[in-house]
């Protein structure tokens, strides 16, 4: 039995020490994806807590059809989208206005001065300017090293949509970086 399977079995048996080991192993994966999706550390911590609580309560529902990584990323995605919806409702906006595809601020002019002189932060800045859906695909591909079928399974979208989102994201990202850093121009 591999280590992850043993951890899941122990979590199903309500062994808190197994949950702690699981948390230590996967909290970075969950928190990082939540943070990149939501762009807010407080909301990302909240989502991470909800995801781990779901693992504790529903580990028996994991059917080993996907990897644990894909399973966790998928739960994180759903919890993060719920969080976005809750925040939108909280802000008294019409829920139908949520557009996960649209870029958040790329239409705004990018001020060179907003980025530090050492160019640090430029990737984060341009990533955050992408729409949530595009940002997720870029992050899962380049940071988490996910294949496009894994991303499609995580986000529950067709594989073709993953490629389309990547194509648009790449164009916007390179345009943004090109305006800020000479090497990207």
């Amino acid at each position, binding site marked *: 039995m591999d280590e992850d399977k043993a951890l899941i079995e122990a979590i199903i048996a309500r062994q808190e020490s197994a949950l702690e080991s699981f948390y230590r192993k996967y909290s970075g994966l969950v*928190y*990082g994806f939540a943070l990149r999706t939501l762009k807010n550390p407080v909301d990302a911590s909240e989502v991470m807590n909800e995801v781990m609580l779901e693992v504790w309560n529903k580990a028996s529902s994991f059917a080993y059809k996907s990897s644990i990584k894909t399973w966790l990323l998928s739960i994180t995605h759903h919890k993060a989208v719920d969080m976005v919806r809750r925040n939108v409702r909280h802000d008294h906006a019409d829920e139908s206005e949520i557009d996960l595809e649209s870029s958040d601020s790329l239409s705004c002019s990018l001020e060179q001065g907003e980025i530090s002189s050492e160019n640090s932060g430029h*990737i984060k800045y341009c990533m955050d300017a992408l729409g949530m859906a595009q940002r997720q695909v870029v992050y899962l591909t380049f*940071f988490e*090293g996910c294949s496009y079928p894994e991303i499609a399974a995580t986000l529950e979208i067709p594989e073709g949509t993953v490629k389309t989102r990547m194509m648009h994201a790449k164009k916007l990202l390179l345009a943004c970086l090109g305006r800020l850093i000479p090497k990207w121009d």
Partner: protein
Amino acid sequence: MTDSNHDENLMALLPWYVNGTLTEDERQAVEALLQRSAEARATLETLQTLQTDIKAELQEPVPGDLGWKRLQKSIHSQPTPIPKTQRDRPIWNRFLAAAAVLIIALQVGLLLKTPTDTTPQLLGTKPGTEQLQDAQLYRLVIAPDARWSEVEALLLELNAQLVDGPSAVGVVSVAIKAPADQAETVLEQLNSHPAIEHAQAVRNE
């Protein structure tokens, strides 16, 4: 499919060629494209740089010990699920079990004795009202690099009761019993501790 459509489809696979997750067939097709297309080679180089920069820049610290403490608190505060076997038991079975327990309790005279609550105060649960009387409340912001064991040691040293938290952003409320003229000293002690980023006294409600 035309050659140009075929090449466009292969160009779309380049990000996953870069992260090394294509199937063997896809990988070979992309490598053939790279041999015949300068545009594909230039895009590949850009994507490789992008991947390196993303990996370097998006590395984030995780909540660590504080996140784990918070999760522990969440799992302890939720209602205990009833095991399926108990849920599925017929109702008369549960009635009989309850009746049996009652009879046994009567026999051993348990009902004649008033129980005394000697449950110790658990860390993370709200103390009773009597425990907060004469205590000063403080709100503490825990330093991001602090370990929970350091915070615990400080709370023990000051004989503090955890009233609330830690929240997702590392804020806890504690009650500390100390003579009124020592309130300032306690506050200074909290603020000077490396595990505490900021401490403030809050008015008891």
